[in-house]
């Protein structure tokens, strides 16, 4: 209590000095919060864009490789055969795999899917599409097409189809229009009930989503599926969970982290550079506090001597300066967080993504700032506590 009371009075007395260092800490913490919020916002945006149109984990049998042609005696006469298109092996007992995936800890949704290449026709327009068949509700929990509808409804019953906005434009189609879809020798007439925009040109220009049954029929996979998509609670756990699913089901599994190695490397590089920026900012803050408190100890050595002479213990003197560091850190964190948040708000309108100053970030800034303040104050505080009171009063030290 005495230490805090004295610390406050020391800060109040050296008002100008205190305000200057507080300004320094505030700017440092504001930079910490601002940079963190921008990078976090950018990463969240990148992840949302990437994972908004793909599953966290995809479980699919390997693609079938063409077999060598053999004569009646079993001798191969054509070893190299060009495949017409990649075709996956049948997904044996896929319902059991779905149950096992759902039982895996961390998995929050699954969606059995059939997908393959097809052609879509409307009038004279002809477009290659990726035909996707799935249950509407299950698919929505993996890729939320309903949330990204710009026209129509999200419904996959009967002959319903939902397509991307670019594909709709290329086909010259809109909600209510029929579209013919052909895959191999199979053809079906579907009706567009919704148009979506996932913000991903590949998906917007290629996806044609219909019911599982329609797609199975068109792709000649009745009763079969090509893959099971899964969503996990924590996106960065996807790789670990993918390996666990692979062990449980025996089916090859791929996480978004494998599919997007470049993105992941980019995100990690960003993390590393953000960490470095944070460290340098905190070092500057720590050195600012330490240097001011060091000067204060020299300036106040006579007062410290008096404090010791009237019965103040070394521990209290140490605490007086640690409290000063802590108060600088605390006040700087509160003001800096506000400044950082305001700066974030100001540039958010010109940014293409949301800059969110989360409670977690503020708590981190507060903790780190207070810890930095106390850490920076330690050496000056120890010096003050170890002053020889007699010499300090005489002004020898």
């Amino acid at each position: 209590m005495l230490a805090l009371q004295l610390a406050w009075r020391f800060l109040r007395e050296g008002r100008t000095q205190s305000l200057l260092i507080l300004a320094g800490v505030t700017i440092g913490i504001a930079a910490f919060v601002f940079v963190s919020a921008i990078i976090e916002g950018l990463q969240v945006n990148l992840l949302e864009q990437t994972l908004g149109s793909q599953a966290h984990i995809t479980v699919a049998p390997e693609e079938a490789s063409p077999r060598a042609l053999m004569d009646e005696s079993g001798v191969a006469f054509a070893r190299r055969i060009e495949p017409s298109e990649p075709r996956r092996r049948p997904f044996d007992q896929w319902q059991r795999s779905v149950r096992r995936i759902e039982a895996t800890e961390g998995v929050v949704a699954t969606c059995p899917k059939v997908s393959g290449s097809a052609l879509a026709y409307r009038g004279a327009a002809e477009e290659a599409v990726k035909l996707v068949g799935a249950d509407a509700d299950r698919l929505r929990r993996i890729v939320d097409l309903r949330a990204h509808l710009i026209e129509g409804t999200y419904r996959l019953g009967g002959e319903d189809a939902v397509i991307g906005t670019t594909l709709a434009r290329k086909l010259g189609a809109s909600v209510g229009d029929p579209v013919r879809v052909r895959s191999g020798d199979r053809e079906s007439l579907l009706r567009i009930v919704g148009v979506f925009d996932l913000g991903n040109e590949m998906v917007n220009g290629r996806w044609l989503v219909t019911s599982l049954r329609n797609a199975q029929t068109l792709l000649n996979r009745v009763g079969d599926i090509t893959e099971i998509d899964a969503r996990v609670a924590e996106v960065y756990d996807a790789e670990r969970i993918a390996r666990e699913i692979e062990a449980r089901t025996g089916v090859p599994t791929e996480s978004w982290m494998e599919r997007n190695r470049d993105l992941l490397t980019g995100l990690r590089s960003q993390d590393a550079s953000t960490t470095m920026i944070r460290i340098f900012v905190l070092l500057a803050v720590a050195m600012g506090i330490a240097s001011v408190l060091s000067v204060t100890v020299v300036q106040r050595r006579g007062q410290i001597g008096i404090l010791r002479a009237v019965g103040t213990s070394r521990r209290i003197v140490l605490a007086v300066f640690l409290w000063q560091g802590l108060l600088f850190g605390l006040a700087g964190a509160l003001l800096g967080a506000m400044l950082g948040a305001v700066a974030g708000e100001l540039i958010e309108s010109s940014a293409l993504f949301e800059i969110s100053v989360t409670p977690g970030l503020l708590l981190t800034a507060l903790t780190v700032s207070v810890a930095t303040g106390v850490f920076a104050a330690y050496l000056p505080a120890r010096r003050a506590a170890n002053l020889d009171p007699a010499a300090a009063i005489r002004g020898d030290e």
Partner: protein
Amino acid sequence: MNARPQLLELESVRKSYGDGVTTEILHGIDLCIGEGELVALVGPSGSGKSTLLNLIGLLDQPTQGRIAIEGRAVENLDDQALTALRGEKLGFIFQSHHLLPGLTVIENVMLPSAAARGGFQTSMRAPSLALLDAMGLGRWAEAWPRQLSGGMQQRVAVARALMNEPPLVLADEPTGNLDTETSDQVFDLLRQQNADSSTAFLIVTHDWDLARRCERVIELVDGAVVYEGPPAGLRPAKQD
């Protein structure tokens, strides 16, 4: 020597400074101070007065010898115990008042009590105010030290030294920075406090006039006590 109960005893106290080549400042000091005594410690500059005062004030440790306060030897006490003993048994007045500029006048007076009790408490205000009143400074309680004259600041320092009602107050040239009139006022104040309470005062001074107004004088020359007794027994030259 005196017949009062012993408050402070020093036996063969020596103090040296330096590593390797050492310089001995005090050469085996023996002295006693009784309860409620008013003692002057005189001597030329460099005679070891301040060193002796630091030892008695537990701000420094003797190289050799024994110091006891109220019969309790202090040489084996750790820093924490010395600090507590200093706060409880000793009051300090310095040549330069050494008030803390960031504390108000009354907070400066309360400081020894706050150090002993772990913080400033409202219960400390009444006795602090009474002391300030006794010093004629009651109405300056909430002022800052910088608003006071040198003499007033030194009176605040006296009040601070008396706050914990210590049995012994050590005053190092308490009037050294004051003009004659103010110096007399401050010394009269010390003498009054000494008369009104059982607090003993050990006053280091260059001022022989002031020393002559104490009960007993200890003269230190080159780190040794050359005279100890009533002012009347001082060498004639020193009585002028």
